[in-house]
């Protein structure tokens, strides 16, 4: 709608502001602000004409006015701001349904195998998972920068060997692969009493290794 536009007159000092117009201005400022506004900032709206106590009272007033709305005025550490009430979230989420995407089981299992068994080929992954691995799965993980090919196994077909990257560790908040949940503990959960045909390896303290 293009209402005829009249350039706004500069604020008239001759025309004293009523509490209602002060509230209107406070609301407009708080609704357009990129960040919470402290009282010190809100005072500037009125060339410091009103003191903090007066503005606080009006802000409390506005907070009450908005009680029934889906949006509320709150005071946070750095000032006052409007924000949506939690009850609105389920509706608003419908506008952006891809908000918390998840990786498929195939992606997660492939990632786990590469993390724990690296370096592995696609064939290795398929053997462990018992199903074939779609190219898109490896592409997803490569595009995310979590896995990379570190060489090729010298067997027919020269399959690429995949390993996890430093970025994978960074983004999972790990200092090294040793900080991954130990396999041993999980294995005992499932394969209790399974025989181990290898000697225990020496205890290893997380090294500087993390490319």
């Amino acid at each position, binding site marked *: 709608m293009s209402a005829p536009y009249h350039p706004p007159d500069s604020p008239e000092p001759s025309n004293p502001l009523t509490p209602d117009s002060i509230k209107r201005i406070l609301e407009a400022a708080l609704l*357009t602000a990129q960040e919470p506004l402290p009282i010190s900032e809100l005072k500037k709206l009125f060339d410091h004409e009103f003191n903090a106590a007066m503005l606080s009272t009006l802000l409390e007033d506005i907070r009450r006015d908005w009680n029934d709305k889906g949006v509320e005025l709150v005071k946070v550490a750095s000032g006052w*701001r409007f924000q949506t009430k939690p009850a609105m979230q389920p509706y608003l989420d419908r506008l952006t349904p891809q908000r918390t995407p998840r990786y498929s089981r195939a992606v997660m299992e492939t990632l786990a195998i590469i*993390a724990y068994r690296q370096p592995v080929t696609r064939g290795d992954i398929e053997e462990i998972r018992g199903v074939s691995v779609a190219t898109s799965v490896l592409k997803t993980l490569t595009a995310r920068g979590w896995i990379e090919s570190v060489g090729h*196994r010298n067997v027919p077909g020269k399959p690429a060997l995949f390993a996890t990257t430093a970025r994978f560790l960074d983004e999972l908040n790990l200092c090294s692969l040793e900080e991954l949940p130990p396999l041993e503990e999980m294995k005992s959960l499932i*394969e209790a009493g399974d025989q181990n045909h290898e000697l225990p390896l020496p205890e*290893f303290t997380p090294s500087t290794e993390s490319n």
Partner: protein
Amino acid sequence: MDSVLDIVDTPPIARICGEPLLEIPQDLYIPPDALEVFLDTFQGPLDLLLYLIRKHNLNILDIPMAELTQQYMSYVAMMRADQLELAAEYLLMTALLIEIKSRMLLPTPKTESEPEHDPRAELVRRLLEYEQMKKAALQLADLPQAGRDFNIIQLWLDQQATEQLPNVHIDDLRHAWIGILTRAKVNRHHQIKRENLSVRAFMSKILRELRAHHHVEFQDLFSPTATVTEVVVTFLALLELAKELLIEISQSHAFGMIHVRSISPT
């Protein structure tokens, strides 16, 4: 003329329709040091011509071509230094005006078939179109503009609706493994060997090094500051790599240099 300036010591710079022109030159005849202002004032020759016609009541026909040309030529001279393109446009306009004037002076052969063609028509059409757009531009500039005359509201939202990549927690990895293990156990007795992760990590590290150099000396794989454990793990990683046919370890003669070579194709 709106007003006559009381500058008596300045002779008229131009005469338009026989009237001495005392005020126009303030806009039109620009001393060289005020060129910047002049260029700001007029968008180009069309704009200047329009100004002459509209503001100073000039008939397009009565524009004194000789003087206008002289004026234009002096702008051209001023602009030549750093506004060559603009100078060219003024020059072109001068040429066009002279052409129109000369054609107006020539007797028009009266032909029955062709309607009389006014040589000014095209210039007039352009001037009017430009003037129309100039007006439209002023009106557009007066429309309320987001950010200037009003602000768009966008409240703070807890979760910004930007495209997010899936989050993975290490517990997700654990669950993925448990899933694999459970299936492996159900399907057949798939053997998953006990493995120390650090060996796996070092295997990747050695392969990365070999990818960069293809060929390294055995001792270079051991950092001089390595702890005993790291040396052991690196050694185990080398053995594992050799076993998996990923590297070749060779020694040309007894006690000679041991070479580690990638046997991957790249």
